[in-house]
């Protein structure tokens, strides 16, 4: 499996990270080097093995369906880069 610059750009776009053409050219061999090394996992016979879901046996708990915390609008907005009228604000998404 070889990653070319077009694949790097596609993956970066999926990850929502802007990269330049020169970034993509630099990253392609780097990622290939790492992925080539990871490739050795394919030699392990795992045909009768279940994938790990939890390292320490633990059951997910249920709690009462009640409000435990709330009414913290201003605290939640406190670190927002931009907020108005008690909301997070973003560039216009609907024309």
């Amino acid at each position: 499996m070889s990653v070319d610059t077009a694949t790097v750009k596609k993956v970066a776009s999926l990850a929502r990270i802007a990269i330049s053409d020169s970034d993509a050219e630099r990253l392609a061999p780097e990622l290939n080097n790492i992925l080539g090394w990871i490739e050795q996992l394919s030699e392990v016979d795992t045909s009768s093995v279940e994938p790990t879901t939890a390292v320490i046996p633990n059951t997910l708990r249920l709690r009462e369906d009640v409000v435990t915390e709330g009414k913290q609008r201003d605290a939640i907005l406190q670190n927002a880069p931009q907020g108005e009228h008690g909301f997070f604000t973003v560039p216009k998404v609907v024309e």
Partner: protein
Amino acid sequence: MTDVTDLGIAQLRDGIRLGTFSAREVADAFVVKVSKAKALNAFIVETPDHALAAAKEADAARAAGETLKPLAGVPIGMKDLFATKGFQTTAASHILEGFKPVYESTVSQRLWDAGAGMLGKLNMDQFAMGSSNETSYFGNVISPWRRGGGDNAPLAPGGSSGGSSAAIAARIVPGATGTDTGGSIRQPAAFTGISGIKPTYGRCSRWGVVAFASSLDQAGPMARSVQDCAILLENMAGFDPKDSTSLELAVPKWEASLSGSLRGKKIGIPKEYRVDGMPAEIEALWQQGVDWLKDAGAEVVEVSLPHTKYALPAYYIIAPAEASSNLARYDGVRYGLRELAEGQNLQDMYAATRAAGFGEEVKRRILIGTYVLSAGFYDAYYTQAQKVRTLIARDFENAWTYCDLLLTPTAPSAAFALGDKGDPLAMYLNDVFTVPSSLAGLPAMSVPGGLDKGGLPLGLQIIGKPLDEQGVLDAGLAIEERAGFTARPQSWW
């Protein structure tokens, strides 16, 4: 007059209780040490007022004749991965620069509830991704150690908890929190001649700890003695309903139960950890460790963990995959950095914010994670890695039928010079001995064993069964008692 900054957690706690010195004297002394150690770059933010407030409370409680809290007046360092209310928390990243949480992480809250105070937020590898502390947005942490013979090349303090390890080794804090995803407590502890334990996955709450790889991330203490680690861990661990993977178990009295006698214990030596090219000094220290544990009454047996060589490649699929998912939250909307040029739309904003806010190693791992999770590759990479993880955990389970604990070196080398490992893959290989136990969620600890020819510390790792922190700490103590490790870096900072 004792210099209180030479004392560890237990001695400070006891001295404050007995009135040998006041908590204020302790806090003042450490605050001065921290402020003078800027050359180490161990702290991102210093918080002297927090430490002084805890000291004031401890001294007032003592004056009023009250029973002191378990860590009353003991100042510590807090890794910048833990959310601290009102104090900047960045995970050493640009994207979280200026972020002041409005809440406190469970682990840090427990420590403050126990009476501890905070000297500052410790530098680290960005989002805990790194083994040398070179990926921090706020600059490299410099190890207080230097090679002998006038070689002043700045050395790596290890990573990702490199601010924690450097500060403890330099005696500017008596102990600190760390977090360990693939070795981030144990490897820096080994590089700087201190101790650190990663408990069983689920012992310490992950709530309020900036997430890297959630199925692996685990908090733990770092300090200069095994007893100090036990004390701190007791005050960090415990059930937390806010973390769905938190274990609903009482916290054992690890400190009170500490014993360096290993009579009746079997120690396994995994033969697959004898890797090619391991320095003879590390081989020799490992053998020395075997002799120490035998001297403590243990029986030593060779065991096999056949899938060891696949642990690192599995880890470098699983951890980036989880990271790519966890770090999707940094979008420039709710907190942290926002990059938005005139006329740009929402998608442009996401991409520009993340391009500007994440460092190179973080981007690299997000891209790998996104790739291995993408359509068509998911089964070949991610599912296969999780299956291999099952085999690695099974190796350990099989080993436990022959032994109670495992002894290995912590890292394949002593500390390297900053800039020495430019190739990402070479850096990843540094975690070869710590990653397998992380994948299996096992408790594991590094304790200093000795010095190499260049005068740099080397660590030994003890790995235990799930929930057997006591066994790990006891074996750590047995090594500590016999290693007599008293070396310390000469102050140049």
